[in-house]
């Protein structure tokens, strides 16, 4: 799911060619983001758009030849005059009299023409890795480019940039895979690589050939003259390891236009994809400066006049973190009564926080929805959560930018992030932005590949783990305290993959253990019967609670359990089944049967789970551990392809001797009915779950302030 959808998505039509554009936000000034089309399109700005659109009007265009635009195959259609006319038409259609242009690679000459020939339309230009012939090209591209039109047999490397090769079966794809492999020299760039290759494959070889042959970029001499004609402020960003455009070109462009050069050391050709935080900040600062955004009213509080404050981030992805985080916050307040706690959180965490009277920071409204993304990633009883997290990249960076702005406006002593992936990742990527003591909480460590993902998935999870390990090794001061919600024995006896260390050893070296945090104290044995009565359950009925959490992922499981109900009821007539669908599934969509109650929502569901005779749930950690702590028999169905539920949670539950793990795919209603009749009401012998986890976590946190 996108982090932000456009306010307008339209096309302009010039000489029969449609060019797509999108508009986001309505601030001043307008920014026109110009991709190096058609090898890429507007989505290449995805890491920047949500943040920039909160401040500015952001206009993106796909450019002719790709995306939602037409793909003419005649070279003359890609002449600079045509492309710049498109861009003016887009500005007109978007209602932008003037804009700051942000252009990448060979889009920079287009932007320079616009700035030179239409100065009234261009307030400034950010040129990223400019392909402007003000300095020689990379030597490795000279010979291949000279032989662009020559027939080739089986070229390799840069020689694949050849019109005949692109027309060969698979040739264009092979070139693209090579090219973007070169353009992302930064380690751990798998997602950016997949994205850029995918966007490049949204066009076709003929459009690419036509663009390349019609491009008519200004040659040396002309390029210098063009740069000298530009009067508006220009900022140049250039990766030091750009293998497409030599950094000398960026340097020379800056010399010709006002000396505003930012060399991104260690970056390749796609810094807006790989380092979106830094690039967004550089663009924002530039736009503010050239448009003279005035300073605004603020409050700065003297250091010793500040109350101690914490900003608590609670991940909405697992849906179960809110309660444990509230429990930790309460314990923390007992230790530090003067500590003010604000929450940067989103639905559904905010529902829990509101009910508890917690203070939610107003900037929370800017957060892009993570839970909606996860729900959109799920299908049936399946959620590939590793890939869902990877595809959440633009949401994570958008939300990180909200977080960072909050920190730069307000003063916090302490950041507590319960699986706040955005903060943890982007602070390690941009360590200069860290402020305050930082606590990281998680209940699992290590991405694990699903077996059917094959070598590719194993490679990817290993790469993600390696990046995390390198982050911690290089910047041990980013996480002031890392807390594992659980115990060392809960950690899977696996490695991080490849040559990487064993997960448990590494975690023990880098984390403190809080024990499990239930977020509530389960009833003592003698309290169960009164609570059961209070909740309206009789002693002589077998109460089976079916719950699927708050996302829309549970429909498939409920269908199967409801189908099992008549069979189970026949075998155990005292059965009473309570199904809780959650807010995203309509309870009316299920058949009505005697003894079967279907609810959208039940207040304090955990109490019902604590007194039931059997529960049927998904494989999420929170609910299964609540059942473990309350010593209830339960069946749990890990979501397909959900590595955390299938490996981490299952391993932990096995250690507690808790629950019956079920495979959704191979389980039919008969089997469910059999398990219901066999397990309901039976005593269990689980390992004890500690009840002091929240207090232990709070003590570990309180030591920091």
């Amino acid at each position, binding site marked *: 799911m996108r982090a932000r959808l456009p306010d307008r998505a339209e096309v302009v039509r010039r000489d029969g060619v449609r060019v797509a554009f999108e508009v986001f936000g309505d601030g001043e000034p307008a920014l026109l983001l110009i991709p190096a089309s058609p090898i890429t399109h507007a989505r290449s700005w995805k890491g920047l758009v949500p943040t920039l659109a909160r401040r500015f009007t952001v206009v993106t265009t796909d450019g002719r030849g790709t995306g939602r635009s037409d793909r003419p195959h005649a070279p003359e259609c890609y002449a600079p005059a045509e492309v710049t006319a498109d861009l003016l038409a887009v500005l007109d259609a978007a209602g932008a009299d003037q804009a700051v242009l942000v252009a990448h690679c060979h889009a920079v000459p287009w932007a320079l023409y616009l700035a030179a020939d239409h100065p009234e339309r261009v307030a400034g230009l950010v040129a990223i890795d400019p392909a402007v012939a003000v300095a020689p090209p990379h030597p490795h591209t000279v010979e291949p480019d000279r032989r662009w039109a020559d027939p080739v047999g089986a070229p390799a490397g840069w020689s694949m940039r050849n019109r005949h090769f692109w027309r060969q079966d698979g040739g264009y794809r092979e070139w693209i895979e090579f090219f973007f492999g070169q353009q992302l020299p930064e380690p751990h760039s798998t997602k950016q690589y997949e994205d850029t290759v995918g966007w490049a494959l949204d066009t076709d070889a003929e459009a690419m050939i036509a663009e390349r042959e019609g491009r008519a970029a200004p040659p040396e001499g002309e390029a210098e003259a063009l740069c000298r004609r530009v009067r508006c402020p220009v900022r140049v960003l250039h990766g030091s390891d750009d293998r497409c455009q030599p950094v000398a070109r960026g340097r020379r462009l800056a010399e010709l236009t006002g000396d505003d050069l930012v060399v991104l050391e260690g970056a390749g050709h796609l810094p807006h994809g790989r380092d979106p935080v830094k690039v967004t900040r550089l663009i924002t600062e530039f736009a503010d*400066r050239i448009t003279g955004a*005035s*300073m*605004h*009213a603020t409050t*700065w509080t003297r250091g*010793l*006049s500040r109350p101690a404050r914490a900003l608590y981030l609670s991940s909405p992805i697992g849906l179960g973190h809110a309660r444990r985080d509230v429990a930790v916050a309460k314990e923390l307040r007992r230790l530090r009564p003067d500590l003010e706690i604000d929450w940067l959180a989103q639905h559904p965490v905010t529902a829990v926080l509101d009910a508890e009277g917690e203070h939610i920071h107003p900037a929370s409204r800017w957060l892009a929805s993570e839970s909606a993304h996860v729900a959109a990633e799920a299908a049936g009883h399946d959620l590939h959560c590793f890939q869902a997290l990877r595809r959440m990249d633009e949401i994570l960076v958008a939300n990180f930018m909200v977080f960072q702005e909050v920190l730069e406006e307000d003063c916090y002593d302490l950041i507590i992030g319960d699986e706040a992936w955005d903060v943890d990742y982007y602070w390690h990527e941009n360590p200069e932005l860290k402020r305050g003591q930082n606590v990281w909480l998680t209940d699992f460590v290590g991405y694990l590949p699903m077996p059917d993902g094959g070598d590719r998935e194993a490679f990817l999870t290993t790469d993600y783990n390696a990046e995390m390990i390198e982050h911690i090794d290089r910047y041990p001061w980013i996480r002031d305290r890392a807390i594992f919600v659980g115990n060392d024995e809960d950690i899977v006896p696996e490695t991080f993959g490849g040559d990487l260390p064993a997960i448990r050893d590494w975690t023990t070296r880098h984390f403190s253990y809080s024990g499990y945090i239930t977020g509530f104290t389960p009833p003592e044995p003698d309290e169960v019967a009164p609570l059961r009565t209070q909740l309206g359950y009789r002693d002589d009925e077998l109460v089976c609670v079916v719950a699927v959490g708050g996302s829309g992922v549970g429909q498939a499981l409920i269908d199967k359990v409801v189908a099992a109900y008549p069979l189970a009821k026949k075998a155990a007539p005292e059965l009473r089944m309570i199904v809780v669908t959650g807010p995203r599934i309509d309870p009316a969509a299920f058949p009505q049967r005697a003894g079967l109650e279907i609810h959208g929502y039940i207040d304090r569901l955990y109490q019902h789970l604590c007194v039931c005779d059997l529960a049927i749930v998904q494989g999420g950690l929170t609910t299964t551990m609540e059942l473990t702590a309350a010593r209830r028999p339960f069946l749990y169905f890990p979501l397909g392809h959900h590595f955390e539920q299938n490996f981490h949670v299952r391993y932990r539950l096995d250690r507690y001797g808790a629950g019956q793990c079920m495979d959704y795919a191979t389980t039919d209603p008969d089997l469910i009915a059999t398990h219901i009749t066999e397990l309901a009401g039976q005593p269990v012998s689980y390992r004890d779950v500690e009840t002091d986890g929240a207090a232990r976590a709070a003590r570990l946190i309180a030591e920091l302030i």
Partner: protein
Amino acid sequence: MRARYPDSEGLLVRDGVEIRYERYGDGWPAILLLPAWSLVHSRQWKMQVPYLARHFTVVCFDGRGSGGSSRPADPSAYSDVAFASDALAVMDAAGIDSAVLVSASRGASWALRLCAEHPDRVLGSVFIGPSALLVPPLAERRVQRFDEVIDEPVGWQTYNAHYWKTHYPEFVTFFVGRMFTEPHSTKQIEDATGWGLETDGETLAAADRALEGSDAAATRRLAARLACPALVMHGTQDAVRSYADGEALASCTGAPLVTLEGAGHFPHLRDPVHVNLLIKQFADRVRR
């Protein structure tokens, strides 16, 4: 020892009054650090000069009645016009066509006059804890009777021309204590007390009488003519001029207000880092 010494300094004479000024650095734009009440002199900017001079040309001068400048006895020598004219003369002498003005406390009225009457010389104006006189004095200052003879005056009653003749050091001690309400301000208090004792009660009284013609309406008229970018910062614990004065100045100039929560009257001495960053940020935006 100072953190940085002036690159040049000079003494100019205007209407028989000597004005001592200093110039640092050579960046653009220039920043003119204006004097405040003659109780302090240009060393009040000691925490700003070394930092700002690395980025900008910085000019400061001792206001008439303080530091190395003359101490005229005639109250008319301390008019707003006189201070504003001194500022222009210093800019001329230092070779500065135009500058960002930074003023504290009473310097606000001179800055406002320069903005209104010499817009070509002013790029922007930063007001720190301005004595804009737009709101009534703080409640505790209502006991002030400047020309009455008061037996054993206490507190703000010591703001008194007769008392200053005999007990000037006591007054300085009291007043400087009100300037720095922040805990742990001993060094700032010692500094400002020392500067205050470099002048005398008669001079300060003469300077103070020049204020008598100022009122809110005059300030508003000047503020309405302010066309350059401006910034106001004011401490919420300012015990000399109320925070409401800064709010009022921001409101009638349209300038953004930076509220300095917990800060007193001279945050540029007590919270120099934050004030320096704000001035730099402001001047950077003017610079474009």
